[in-house]
């Protein structure tokens, strides 16, 4: 069993270098290459129209939800208004 500090350091450095080499794979570089392209195409001239299209179902659902929330109040008021008319 060797206790030479230089040998231990060399072994550790080799392991760390191995890990660093894994991080620097082409897969990780690809994100740096494509990031600008992605941002340019997402936040381009079509951004507002895409966002509107995407949020339209949620807006419709929100309006339906508001109608359900107030439907009892609205029905009661209509009923009372009819009774007052008669």
């Amino acid at each position, binding site marked *: 069993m060797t206790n030479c500090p230089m040998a231990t350091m060399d072994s550790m450095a080799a392991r760390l270098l191995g890990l660093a080499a894994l991080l620097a794979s082409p897969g990780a570089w690809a994100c740096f290459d494509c990031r600008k392209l992605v941002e340019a195409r997402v936040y381009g001239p079509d951004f507002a129209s895409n966002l509107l299209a995407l949020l339209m*179902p949620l807006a419709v659902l*929100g309006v339906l939800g508001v109608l359900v929330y107030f439907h009892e*109040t609205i029905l*009661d008021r209509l009923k*009372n208004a009819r009774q007052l008319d008669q």
Partner: protein
Amino acid sequence: MRDSLISKPRRGPLVTAGLFLGIGLGGFVDGILFHQILQIHNMLSARIPVADLVSAKINMTWDGYFHAGVWVMTLLGVWLLFRAGTQRNTIWSGKMLSGAMLFGWGLFNLVEGLIDHQILGIHHVMEYAINKFPYDLAFLISSLILMLAGWALIRAPGRDSPYSPVQP
């Protein structure tokens, strides 16, 4: 009239809370199961087909905006549920809440399916298929089944507490 509105037992607050929770959580099921796990049904996949890493990341960004929207819906549902719990005349029923959540989930799928798939055509359930319609139709049918099941639960008589847990 105002007094009668305040004291009359009301289903609306709990049903609306369940509806918004169902819409929000149904949206998350859509996003997690279809967009992320199965890698289909991405938000703009008909306009920007997922063909390479850039187009996949663009769709991923729009999926993020979609998730932000359904997160707001879920938050609204939690707030409405809290409000329903503080109103003394709210009918308090677990069956009704779960029914409303199922109904909301189905309603979300129906509205999303009609607007995004059929009217705007920004994406389809299975963009990779040659004939996309059967998948879109199955999505709409499943939404109707969810809504029917939810409606049946909302209308079913329960043994739950008739009013909210807040006592006068």
